């Protein structure tokens, strides 16, 4: 561990408004794009995202990872009646990583938008900026109502981005996406209000939307009340994640969405679900998680297998990547459900790593689709490697990252989740330990299926003799495509070789969460009472 850099970082003063500046940067970008000409839209968007990346880099640099506290807090009273509401942002290690990921993936998506953005560029790029704004907002909001507003606001630009720039069945896909997510949003709103009013009955000043306060007060509520609120939040987040049986919107949305939007959808939007699960479901309702954590694990394990099975029967390459996202999101559920530090740590790592790997894979799918104009594997028929050797290497690299090859980022999350969950309290001691263990074993068989479908996909795309119909119609990666792919591959490799550069930023978060829960477990076992009556 390079101790010296830590010392320097602690001594660097934190700019108090940096986070707020970062949050409103894309909003400002969207306004500037609306005011500028069609031709300038692309340039403005690029500049905005570059500035965002610089700001995110400064944020990460000034962040002090050695303490678990929230940093860059910024609190402004907004309205006082009928209830006090504040603008409240701040980051801890986990949200910091997600904010940085948002900045990076957005930058890549903007640069990947060259073709798509030719159609109505002003509208396209301003929607993209609005989407980024809402994403950053979700990850750094510390007020629950504000969190909800950002969470719902993301629907608007996303709906239009799919419905205007999407593929042939875009209307259906956009509507399906909207309905599913809106349903989740309403559930969350109900849970949020329910929580608020239940807290109000506890005492005159106990009702609050402050997420820090909530994580202290919500566990005091009667378990049944917590259960209802938990269920609302949980359903909302697993729709977004997505998890079986609410996953069917994802393949449709992905297949119809244009490439850069798929990158953002898989790379960032899904992470809102995982983030919510950790921050709200685990942070607010630990005793529910202690009782039902094994069920979350079972759901996660089932997702891993179900997503992988679905991949084996698809013919559309984009659908395969979409279902593999479902499968990989299962690791997040598995890691969260086990309640152990290593598992939560792995789940967070999986979110970040999947953010890059899936963005890279969707980008690569886009590059092949642009050349062949079909995503159907039987129509492509294989043998593309001869004409696209560079793309073939990038594909190979990202496919390997996706199937969890050691040394690439996909491996770290999987291994941490497996090791962490198997050694956790839930899988070893709790009343449902045998069930949890059995499902971890089942989930582990996913490593075979994952290898199967990813390699089969590669084989059906690139291996085999050259097809006569493609001769002379295909070209290898352009300079821009190579630059983007290199960037993503470099990040995947760096995180895979040295995961600690990321883990030490957010490690405190998972350690603290697990410690709180372990404390509760020990307390309840000392009292010889079950955790929930």
């Amino acid at each position: 561990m390079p101790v010296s850099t830590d010392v320097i970082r602690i001594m660097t003063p934190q700019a108090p408004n940096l986070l707020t500046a970062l949050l409103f940067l894309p909003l400002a970008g969207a306004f500037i794009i609306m005011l500028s000409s069609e031709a300038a839209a692309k340039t403005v968007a690029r500049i905005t995202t570059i500035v965002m990346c610089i700001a995110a880099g400064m944020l990460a640099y000034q962040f002090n990872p050695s303490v678990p506290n929230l940093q860059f807090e910024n609190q402004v009273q907004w309205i006082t009646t009928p209830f006090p509401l504040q603008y409240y942002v701040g980051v801890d290690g986990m949200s910091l990583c997600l904010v940085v990921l948002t900045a990076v993936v957005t930058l890549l998506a903007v640069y990947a938008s060259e073709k798509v953005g030719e159609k109505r560029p002003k509208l396209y790029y301003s929607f993209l900026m609005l989407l980024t704004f809402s994403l950053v907002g979700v990850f750094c909001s510390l007020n629950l109502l504000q969190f909800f507003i950002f969470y719902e606001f993301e629907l608007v630009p996303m709906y239009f981005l799919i419905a205007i720039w999407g593929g042939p069945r875009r209307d259906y896909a956009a509507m399906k996406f909207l309905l599913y997510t809106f349903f989740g949003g309403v559930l969350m709103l109900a849970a949020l209000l329910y929580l608020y009013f239940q807290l109000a009955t506890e005492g005159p000043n106990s009702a609050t939307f402050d997420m820090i306060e909530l994580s202290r007060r919500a566990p005091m509520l009667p378990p049944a009340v917590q259960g209802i609120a938990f269920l609302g939040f949980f359903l909302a987040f697993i729709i977004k994640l997505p998890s079986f049986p609410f996953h069917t919107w994802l393949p449709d949305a992905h297949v119809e969405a244009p490439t850069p939007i798929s990158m953002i959808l898989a790379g960032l939007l899904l992470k809102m679900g995982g983030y919510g699960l950790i921050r709200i479901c685990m942070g607010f309702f630990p005793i529910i998680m202690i009782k039902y954590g094994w069920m979350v694990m079972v759901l996660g394990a089932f997702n891993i297998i179900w997503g992988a099975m679905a991949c084996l029967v698809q013919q559309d390459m984009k659908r395969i990547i979409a279902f593999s996202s479902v499968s990989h999101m299962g690791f997040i559920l598995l890691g969260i459900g086990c309640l152990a530090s290593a598992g939560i740590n792995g789940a967070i790592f999986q979110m970040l790593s999947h953010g890059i790997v899936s963005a890279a894979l969707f980008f690569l799918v886009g590059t092949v689709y642009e050349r062949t104009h079909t995503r159907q594997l039987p129509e492509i028929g294989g043998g593309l490697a001869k004409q696209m050797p560079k793309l073939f290497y990038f594909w190979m690299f990202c496919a390997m990252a996706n199937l969890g090859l050691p040394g690439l980022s996909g491996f770290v999350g999987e291994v941490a989740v497996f090791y962490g969950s198997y050694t956790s309290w839930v899988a070893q001691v709790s009343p449902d330990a045998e069930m949890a263990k059995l499902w971890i074993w089942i989930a582990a068989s996913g490593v075979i299926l994952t290898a199967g479908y990813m390699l089969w996909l590669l084989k059906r795309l690139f291996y085999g003799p050259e097809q006569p119909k493609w001769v002379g119609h295909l070209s290898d990666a352009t300079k821009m495509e190579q630059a983007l792919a290199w960037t993503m591959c470099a990040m995947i490799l760096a995180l895979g070789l040295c995961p600690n550069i990321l883990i030490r930023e957010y490690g405190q978060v998972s350690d603290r969460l697990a410690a709180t829960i372990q404390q509760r477990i020990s307390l309840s076992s000392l009292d010889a009472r079950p955790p929930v009556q």
Partner: protein
Amino acid sequence: MCLSVGAVIYGFIHSLLIFYALNQPGITGGVVADMPYFVSSSLSLHVGVLVDNLAAMMLIVVTCVSLLVQIYTHGYMREDPGYSRFYSYLSLFTGSMLGLVISTNLFQMFFFWELVGVCSYLLIGFWFYKDSAAAACVKAFVINRIGDFGFLLGILMLLGFTVGFVNGQPQNLWGQTPLLSFYGADGGPDLAAVLRRAYDVRAVSYWGFNGLFVMACLMFMGPMAKSAQFPLHTWLPDAMEGPTPISALIHAATMVAAGVYLVARAYPIWVAPVELHSQPALFVVAAVGCVTSFMAATIAMSQFDIKRTLAWSTVSQLGYMFVGLGAGAFTGGLFHLFNHAFFKAMLFLCSGAVIHGLHGEQDMRKMGGLKKDMKGTGLCFLIGCIAISGFPPFSGFFSKDEIIASAWNFNHFIGGMMILTAGLTSFYMFRAYFMTFSGSYRGGDVKPHNSGPAMVYPLIALSLPSMLSGFLGANPNSFASINWSGEEGGVFANPFGSFVYYLHPHFEGINGIIMLVSVIFAAAGWLVAFMMYREGKLSWNTAIANSKSPLIGGAYRFSFNKWYFDEAYTAFYSFVLRLYKNVWNFVDMVIVDNIVNGTSLVTAAFGQFLKYSQTGRGQYYALVIFGWVAVLTLAAYFIKP
């Protein structure tokens, strides 16, 4: 090419220095250094460097064979458009393999284990435009992943036993030692001590078996897949679709030995149940090795592709190594690994020279008489055949006899099978030699030509250890006191054995009778091959192949079709895939989507009634939605649970 070869030369010199350093008087044990890879409060994983005698031995094997193969590649692949890509893959492989060898713990072993697997995938599929290569590389990787799945479960179980919970309290039996380490560090316990404590603390039973035994068997799936043991062996012969240098380096000498290396490295895992419990995991290792060894030898007898014959012989010899480890001949198994790496790499490189000289012809029926055109290659192949068949004094004799003798003491049936297999080995190897190099040329128009110096010198370099490396395992004292009584002999240290010696059941004595019998079997195998393929005096081969009798002809076809494993697996695989497809289609498309579409139907029906309330104003809709939420929340508020 220069970069790649230069790096390997450096590695080879470094390995020799390490070997030299470890041989200094006063040096015992190894050097361990770890650094954290994954850190969390409940469990941390480390990677590091471990150099001890076992690792030093493997380092020499890996770097030496890699070096020679890389030089050979220059001659073999010069005209291929993927020349530099090939070198980059080769370097990646050598690097991964070295990482595997110096692993300090099981996690790191798993890490590099998968990396060498992917190198194998890349190199088998090197000629990606060939359909057969594309299928073979996927098959190799997926079967290896099946093994990795077992390996992963084994690691998980081990972790569960050692860093789980006891009576609700977290426990960590590893103390100061990083998790899963082979060696104890900073006063912490080593793997054997941890297993011992795990057994004392939690005697877990799984389906009536000892938990540690189940763990050892699951973990053995990894070596089974990587070292192509029954029933996960089917990928290795198909892996011959890759270029021949790869077959020599990865699929004969080094990577396939990784499984043997893992068993040797983590030996306490397989030994522990023997010490502690009556269900021996070592017996499983020996039995799997025995079945594989015999099966592969019977299959090799009827193959016509020169590389596939060698591939099956590799499978068979790997089986020998596992029998050695399983029977307690720790040093014997490793010694066979050491010798086999040299002579098998040489045999493959010879076959590569033949194939190169015949412009890609691999069918032995179209060869013959090549001794005239390829003198050096023929001689090297002959040396390899003698070595692998176990004729004294070439290297195979020493290690194989150590294994056979301990196998006989371990279990007479396994020992007997090993002796029989030794005879079969001799037969199929000399069959290959006679079909390829003696007699008259049957290739028609293709004119055989000899290979360039880049290909010949590595062969000669490899022929030296093939002839002589056996003497590393010979102690003059052992010869002086050969035990002719058929009883277990006394334990005599030999130079190799005392170098990699391990504190576990092992057998180093020489049993004269067993030795004599196995040499007689090998000689019989040679004689039959000589009469059939050299002199043509015996024509059993054609008689058997054309036999109509269900027993004899059936046996031949059984062997020729590789015991029908591929057919069975394909049937099983397509059955499972079809099952998946049906289940998935039914659940996802019919049930889940119909519920979703059903809701939309209900919505539509409601819409018929409610369309009069549609004003088209967004605020109105939002008001309705929020109104409902407010009503529901209030309802929930009043109906207190």
